[in-house]
Structure formats: structure tokens, C-alpha cells
């Protein structure tokens, strides 16, 4: 909870988010880690490498996958029907979780949240942004999603439907934003630059082509 939720104007932040880190849990983590290393289950170097791998993952592959879906209809079909195998082509292993790609259309916008904890497609997008884990986002995304989007600077028109996906179980979600108008003839690589992490969660649209030109 390093990020102060106020950076996104979220009110009703729980006092728990502002408190000291949970010392008891930190102590248990240290004890468990030391035991596992002492017993030779893994080494400190293994652990360091695993953390590096996890931290090196970012939303880039998510952006590449969306750009591919925009230009390649068979890939797009595969992504919406068998997302795990579609993203495997990009070297992403979803493990036991099942990925679902959600298509934004002219009349339906999708937003992802995990109200119970902070489930996020980490294998695909890396570590979630800190606001995603705040109590304010988790509580408000399901209750007043339009107000939350507006705070991110995205006003959803009243005649558009919003679908909020609460990642409560074994599924993980990625939003496929609409391809912006005026990008006809753009290469896959150029299109990738329009897809931000926030657009993959659904708190934003893809960038305006003028912003990256």
C-alpha cells in the first residue's frame, strides 16, 4: 500500500491502508523464507531471480497481444475463445488461471476489479498498479464504476453499458480496448504504443493516435 489513494482522488480510504505494514505477517514471511532456504528447498539466488522475473514483467506483452488482435482476425478469434493458448504464442504461461479477454465495443465497456483481494493477470501484465489494490478502488468499482472512471479522466457516455468483472475465482481478465479511429494502415508495432496498462484494466480507452504520433 505504498501509493496514497488520494493520488486518484479516491475517498473513503480505510485507516488500515494508512497504517504500518502488518508486522506479524512480515515476520512470518521472514521465518518461512529462512526455513525454506535452510532446508535447501530453494536458494536465496533462486528467490532473487524469481522476484526479478516477476518485477521485469510489465504491460508490454498485453499491448502487443491487443495490437495483434486488432490486425489479425484469426488471432482475435483465438483470443476471445481460448485466451490461454492465444497468449502462449507470446510466451505467456497463465498457469492454473484461465484468462478471459473482454471486448470493448461501441456500446459496451468492460472494467476489471478484484473486490476480495487483488487478483490480476500477473503472468501477462506484471505487478498490478497500487491503486488497483486499494480498498477504495475495490469497493467503488462495482458500486459506482462510472464515477471511478470519471476520476481517471474517462467519462463514459450515458447510452453506453458498462460491465464490471469481479475476479472472484480462477479467471483472470484482460480488456481489449476499441481500436482508435484514424489508425488505418498502422503497423502492429505502431498500434502497440496506443495500448496502455490502464486501458487493459478498463479504466481508460486506448490512446488517441495524435498522442503518440
Amino acid at each position, binding site marked *: 500500500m505504498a501509493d496514497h489513494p488520494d493520488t486518484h482522488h479516491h475517498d473513503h480510504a480505510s485507516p488500515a491502508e494508512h497504517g504500518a505494514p502488518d508486522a506479524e505477517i512480515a515476520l512470518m514471511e521472514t521465518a518461512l523464507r529462512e526455513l525454506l532456504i535452510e532446508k535447501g528447498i530453494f536458494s536465496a539466488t533462486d528467490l532473487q531471480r524469481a522476484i526479478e522475473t516477476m518485477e521485469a514483467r510489465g504491460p508490454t506483452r498485453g499491448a502487443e497481444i491487443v495490437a495483434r488482435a486488432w490486425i489479425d482476425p484469426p488471432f482475435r478469434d483465438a483470443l476471445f475463445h481460448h485466451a490461454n493458448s492465444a497468449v502462449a504464442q507470446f510466451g505467456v504461461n497463465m498457469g492454473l488461471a484461465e484468462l478471459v479477454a473482454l471486448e470493448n465495443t461501441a456500446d459496451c465497456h468492460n472494467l476489471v476489479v478484484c473486490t*476480495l483481494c487483488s487478483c490480476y493477470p500477473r503472468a501477462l501484465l506484471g505487478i498490478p498498479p497500487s491503486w488497483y489494490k486499494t480498498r477504495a478502488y475495490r469497493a467503488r468499482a*462495482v458500486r*459506482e464504476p462510472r464515477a471511478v472512471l470519471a476520476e481517471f479522466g474517462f467519462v463514459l457516455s450515458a447510452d453506453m*453499458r458498462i460491465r*464490471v468483472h469481479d475476479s*472472484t475465482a*480462477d479467471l483472470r481478465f484482460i480488456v481489449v480496448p476499441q481500436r482508435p479511429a484514424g489508425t488505418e494502415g498502422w503497423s502492429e508495432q505502431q498500434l502497440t504504443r496506443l495500448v496502455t496498462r490502464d486501458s487493459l484494466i478498463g479504466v481508460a480507452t486506448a490512446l488517441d493516435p495524435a498522442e503518440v504520433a
Partner: protein
Amino acid sequence: MIAALHEDQLVRVERGVEYGHVRTPGYLRGRHGRILEVVGGFPDPNVLARGGLGLPYRMLYRVAFCARDVWPEYAGSAADEIVADLYEHHLQAREDNDG
């Protein structure tokens, strides 16, 4: 595994679910929804959390709820929905169609 519920079926989320590592959020308990998709069998999270193998596996569904049904004071469109992933043992089939 055979799914007892099917796509488009109307369901009610059990009001009082079990204790422990339960993945059915409180705000949906007792609410009426519609099966959007039958996902498949998954290990029972409450059994996994206690160190078990997750048996018996539970059928998982994506269930859609009308946001206005969940939040009476909801300010958005009547078409707005919340979709959650819920296990079969927390759902009941509804025979009626009138809510």
C-alpha cells in the same frame, strides 16, 4: 464434470454461505443473476486453503447481475452489469422469471 446449471439460466446466490476462504463476495449474497457462461470444474478454494487437494472440484460459472438490482441507489444505466465468477454450490436455480 457435469454442470447442473446452464447458460442464460436465472439463479439466486445463497445468502448464508460457508465460513473460511470463500470466494463469493458478500455484496452478491442473496442476489439474483443470470448464468453468462459455464466455465468448468475447479478445486474448491475453501478446501485448498486448509491444505487439501480441493476435492470435490466445483463447477464455476460467470454470473451476470444487473447493477441496479445489486445497489438500489445505483446511478448508472439500467443495462449496467456486474459479472462475478461463482461456484455451483453457492448458487440455486430459479424456476421463476420474475425476480
